[in-house]
């Protein structure tokens, strides 16, 4: 039997219009240092590009960094993922997200929102914890 790669596979990206990438770069590097497989993109990815990457790379988690309201279009990303049969991929958002927007994101299906001050360890721990569930859901689907 082929040994399954247990390392979480994470796509770290930014959609929309903002270019502040300190957060996405630091988080991507930290997840990689924590032993995960990380696919990193520069800012301004189109939603279709993110879905295509998620499909091709078979990622478990998509981390979207939003420092300047780009999280407002994350529900569109979730719709596009569902349309591509990738509903089980967990989408997490990190950055400047007001409370009201966080509620909206969680209702639209975002798994978790990390705010400024969240430790790299807490982000890595969360990704590690949810990955088995995502894989189980994918196998079941």
């Amino acid at each position, binding site marked *: 039997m082929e040994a399954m790669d247990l390392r979480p596979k994470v796509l770290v990206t930014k959609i929309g219009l903002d270019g502040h*990438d300190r957060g996405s770069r630091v988080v991507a590097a930290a997840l990689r240092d924590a032993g995960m497989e990380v696919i*990193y*993109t520069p800012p301004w990815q189109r939603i279709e590009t993110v879905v295509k990457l998620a499909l091709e790379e078979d990622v478990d988690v998509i981390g979207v960094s939003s420092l300047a309201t780009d999280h407002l279009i994350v529900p569109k990303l979730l719709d596009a993922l569902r349309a591509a049969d990738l509903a089980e991929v967990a989408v997490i958002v990190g950055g400047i997200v007001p409370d009201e927007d966080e509620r909206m994101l969680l209702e639209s299906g975002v798994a978790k929102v990390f705010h400024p001050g969240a430790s790299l360890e807490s982000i890595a721990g969360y990704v590690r914890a949810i990955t088995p569930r995502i894989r189980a859901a994918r196998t079941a689907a």
Partner: protein
Amino acid sequence: MNKPLDGTLALDAAEARWQEEYAAGVGTEPPVANRSGIPVKPLYTPRDWDGGRYEEDLGFPGQPPYTRGIYATMHRGRTWTQRQLIGLGTPQDYNARLAGVLAQGATAVSLIPCNSVFRGYDMDEVHEELLGTCGTVVNTAGHMDAALAGVDLAHTSCAMNDPSPFTLLAFVLATARRRGVDWRAVSGTSNQSDYLSHFVANHMFFRIALPGARRILVDHIDFCNRAVPRWNPMSVVGQHMQQGGATPAEAMAFTLSSAVQYAEDCLARGMDPDRFLPRFTFFFDISLSFFEEVAKFRAGRRIWARLARERLGAKDPRSWRFKFHGQTSGVDLTRQQPLNNVARVTVQAMAGIFGGLQSLHTDAYDEVLSCPTDEAARVAINTQNVLREEAHLTDVIDPLGGSYYVETLTDQMEREILRVMKIVEDAGGMYQAAEAGLVQKMIGESAMRFQRAVESGAQTVVGVNAYRADEAEADRPPVYKPDPAAMRAHLAAFRTWKAARSQDAVRRALDALARAAASPRENVFEQVVAAAEAGCTHGEICGRLREELGFGQPLAFV
């Protein structure tokens, strides 16, 4: 007491006694260093700095090397400009907020456009949800006219966050012409002309690929020097790099290396340094590392004075002066217990003031939550008013000058800045160092080092890794949101206006722009201004230049 105390027996004995008492008092302590990695001792004395090179290294305010300030009078003569960066919603929303900020004591106008504008698009080309959430949606000369309604363009300095190809300045000039204001009277700054800082950090301003951006910048400087002589076409920005993670010394080094690159590009065009250098300005981040920031600015002034004179061949002292705008660091602010940010911004602002800045933006305490609310914007500007008028921080010029610590640190920061500049120089200068990814790599490593220090607790962040408190949503200040109905009306009016204008004039102007981009003998920015006056939109101008010169994309790596 002017005589150096160093070497006298009494001092040796006193110092030895202090060292003993200090060691007994603190025991073993971990090494202390500032953000630039410079070790910090518990005490500085004449052994570290004895004032022996006063004339060469410090001099007097307004005299080279300007360590103590670029003007003889400094803040006692003319206070710094209170320039609050604002931008939100529609041009009308912006104009209303502007009136409020001017009434509070702001003395100059600034405009932050929407992120869609930054990326080079019109409002009908992007996700509607994002319009006006982070800046004002200005796509035409008419929008600029509405945004600046009531502002006297002949007597108000206007700073525009306006990357290459500088459409916002083109809209300002079109507005000035429409109002009968002579372009020679128009003053202000192109805040985002530093395309290299966009390429290596805060990429959203990077609209046109490197070679095109390089060429348009020189066109822009040349055009402004000739036609809008009171405009500062060049703002060299260290802020993006420091916000992106560069240490204060690295940010200063990269900024000075960029300034040299831009100046040498102008020289290569045959331009006179004493014509363009007096219109160079700088823009820096001011972190919470108080003394380090003061030393950073003092060292930067000294290095620039020497570079401008010796390397760039400038003879006019106005070319040697390191004029800078400072913005308090947003990265140091916390979402946790946000009112604590008022204290942080106060310390940062003090560092900038003691560092000798010419213009200051103080962040609103809620900037880590959303675009600032009216109340937070008021607190931010009143922080400046308190520091200047209640606390009397400006009574003495360069009040920290002569401090054993600050002078030693200024020398050390200078050496560290020069060390980093040498790395850039060895890589072929800033353009090539950025193109090769060297600068981005250094910034990323420094960002990670700082984050690790926060996570290990080596760097305290109140409310985040220390002194935490349970917080409920109700404890957080309200969040600014643009009115969606007003934005929809703005978009509808834009579509109607676009359909009704002379399409012929637009096509001709865009063709002329494309021809200028293809011909090294023409000035691209001149054609941008002509296109703005002919009714072309921001997105059309950027789009056409992208076709001709390529889309700006940063390097992709972690």
